[in-house]
């Protein structure tokens, strides 16, 4: 619908401009990453461990490490977050305690990621004596993405029409059966959105894993959850600032792989969400 | 025709129609018996006719109740509304016909105790036509048959013709022999009641046309 009149054109123009400003940096980042890092990315790069002080070889352990961290984080944060959201949405009364909890969650979402890293160091690595490990990293990251998951899940649950709950209860189902069979399945797409957002953050953050999980140089896969891991974000930081003489294409290549990985994870989650939506509407 | 989605209402209408038919056939019987009591001088039969009127009155009230109920509860419109409105008027006509039959029966009772001054020939003929008209009017009601109603007009003319003939004949007799006046007047009255019965049947016919077409017109002048 084309706008008419100068006022309309002005508004249209400004809005169009804002879209350009938003997409331009994203496009630019992609362009730079791809053009400078593309040449470094090949099968050897992706599947072998770093050698010669990371100047040669590949980033396979870091890729695996990131994947393991993401998986572990989701495994902890998703169930916990969903259960908390269910409690807040379905069971608690909307009283003062509820509002207090929401306040806490919102504040938690605003805590800087490095603070999470320090907390993880103190609580998981030192106090619980887990040590710098995959587990500690996952726990810290889980804590960090919990607010996002809880908020998105709670909204998704709230969005389920009350009429479904009423119908289910009127048919003689208990509260929990109603949630499990009707409310939760309907809220799944929304919950997955929260999970997608959470996963992106978990995959890409450096600070939380800095003190809790990441290894400087560990050219093998972790032997257990108590073992340290390499991780892409941290590895990228290392090869761009801590280790000299790394070829530029290797640095950009690593960044490219990290971005691609996050995109891949997001894409699969989005596909999953679409599939669930499709199945529900037949 | 596809099955109606107002089965309950349809059933109620059908039940009401049944009751009207029942009432009509009862009235027809009353007319038949009344004339029979007259010509066969059967006091027993005359008494029976008089008693039958109670049943007819009960049906009148019952059918009116049904109609009121349907008007209150079923919000009838168009054809349904005309049907119910028509039915309420038809039962009034039927009830009056019943009353006339009772009047004839009472006269038959009186006449039975006296010897007749002339054989009763035309009156039963007239009664037969009147009964035929009643039957046809009810048939037209049930089948919504406008053509049948039109045919009844001819019968009404026949009834009128018979009445005039009876009237002239009896007046003749009265002029010749004033002693039979009382009896003669009774017979005249019977003929008059039969003519009225035929009129009511015509009314029913007019109502049936209204029910079917929505147009109310007098059938004969």
């Amino acid at each position, binding site marked *: 619908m084309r706008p008419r009149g100068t006022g309309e054109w002005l508004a249209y123009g400004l809005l169009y401009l804002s879209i350009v400003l938003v997409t331009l940096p994203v496009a630019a980042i992609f362009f730079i990453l791809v053009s400078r890092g593309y040449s470094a990315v090949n099968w050897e790069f992706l599947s072998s461990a770093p050698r010669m002080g990371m100047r040669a070889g590949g980033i396979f352990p870091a890729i695996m490490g990131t994947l393991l961290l993401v998986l572990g984080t989701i495994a902890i944060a998703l169930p916990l977050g969903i259960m908390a959201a269910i409690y807040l949405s379905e069971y608690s*009364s909307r009283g003062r305690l509820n509002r207090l909890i929401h306040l806490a969650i919102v504040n938690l979402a605003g805590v800087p990621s490095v603070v999470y890293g320090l907390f993880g160091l103190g609580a998981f690595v030192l106090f619980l004596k887990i040590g710098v490990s995959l587990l500690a990293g996952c726990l810290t990251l889980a804590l960090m993405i919990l607010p996002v998951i809880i908020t998105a899940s709670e909204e998704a649950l709230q969005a389920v*029409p009350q*009429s*479904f709950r*009423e*119908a*289910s*209860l*009127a*048919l*003689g*189902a*208990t509260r929990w*059966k109603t949630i499990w*069979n*009707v409310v939760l*399945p*309907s809220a799944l797409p929304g919950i997955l959105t929260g999970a997608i957002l959470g996963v992106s953050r978990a995959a890409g953050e450096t600070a939380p894993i800095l003190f809790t999980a990441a290894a400087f140089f560990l050219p093998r896969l972790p032997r257990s959850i108590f073992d340290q891991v390499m991780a892409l974000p941290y590895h990228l930081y290392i090869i761009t600032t801590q280790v000299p003489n790394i070829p530029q294409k290797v640095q950009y290549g690593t960044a490219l792989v990290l971005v691609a990985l996050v995109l891949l994870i997001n894409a699969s989650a989005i596909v999953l969400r679409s599939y669930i939506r499709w199945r*529900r*509407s*037949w | 025709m596809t099955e109606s*989605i*107002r*089965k*309950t*209402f349809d059933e109620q209408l059908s039940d009401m129609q049944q009751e009207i038919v029942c009432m009509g056939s009862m009235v027809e019987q009353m007319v038949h018996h009344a004339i029979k009591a007259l010509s066969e001088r059967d006091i027993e039969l005359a008494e029976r006719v008089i008693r039958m009127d109670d049943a007819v009155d009960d049906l009148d009230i019952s059918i009116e109740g049904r109609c*009121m*109920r349907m008007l*209150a*509860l*079923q*919000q009838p419109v168009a054809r349904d509304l005309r049907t119910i409105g028509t039915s309420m008027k038809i039962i009034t006509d039927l009830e009056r016909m019943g009353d006339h039959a009772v009047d004839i029966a009472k006269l038959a009772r009186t006449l039975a105790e006296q010897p007749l001054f002339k054989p009763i020939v035309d009156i039963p003929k007239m009664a037969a036509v009147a009964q035929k008209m009643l039957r046809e009017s009810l048939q037209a009601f049930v089948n919504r048959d406008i053509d049948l109603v039109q045919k009844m007009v001819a019968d009404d003319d026949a009834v009128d013709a018979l009445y005039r003939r009876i009237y002239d004949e009896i007046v003749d007799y009265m002029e010749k022999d004033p002693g039979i006046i009382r009896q003669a007047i009774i017979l005249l009255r019977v003929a008059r009641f039969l003519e009225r019965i035929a009129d009511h049947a015509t009314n029913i016919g007019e109502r049936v046309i209204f029910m079917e077409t929505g147009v109310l017109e007098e059938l004969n002048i």
Partner: protein
Amino acid sequence: METAACIIDVNKLNFYYGKFQALKDITLCLKPHKITAFIGPSGCGKSTFLRTLNRMNDLIAGVRINGKVLIDGRNIYAPDMDVVELRRRVGMVFQRPNPFPMSIYDNVTYAPRMKGQSRGLDDLVERTLVRAALWDEVKDKLKVSALSLSGGQQQRLCIARALAADPGILLMDEPCSSLDPVSTLRIEELMQDLKSEYTIIIVTHNMQQAARVADYTGFFLSGELIEFGDSNKIFTKPDDKRTEGYITGRFG
């Protein structure tokens, strides 16, 4: 012949939303295998009353109730009453059709599955859909989403779903108010059909519907039950002037 006992016996029922009294001293006797309708202007308490019969009002915070509601002779507000069991016995159909976003089959089998039943479901589905006059229209597409049906069909599905829980009593809260006139009449005929097996209690803001369908009608006004009795009587010669005023459309 009114010798049947009351299937629902309400005695001096008072209901409060916080400080507001929504129902005042309601006493009545509902007969089995009959259709009873409740009419009245908006906010008169008729829907609130309906929901006290299957304790759906429990879902609202801050409600208070006193008085007795006996169903099959048991007070449903007694502390030892199993609400889940009550809601199986007393089913409910809502104003807007609310089928679950599942297949038709899964919708109908919801109640028995919640109860733990896993066998004989196919028969149950056929039986209840036949009962709800929907079988012929959906028998070839039971696995299709319930949301693909029309409004009238969805409401009949909700009726089938409620019947699948095997209730003896069916509560209907303005069941036709979001449907077109033809669907409405179909569901009214369905109600007539169902009453041979169930007791039906309906709330409607459409009094012509109450007149067409109900054996008994009750008139609510501002939380009070003004008049209750045989529908024919209520609609031809009501006792109370307020009833007459409402049904003749002089107010409301």
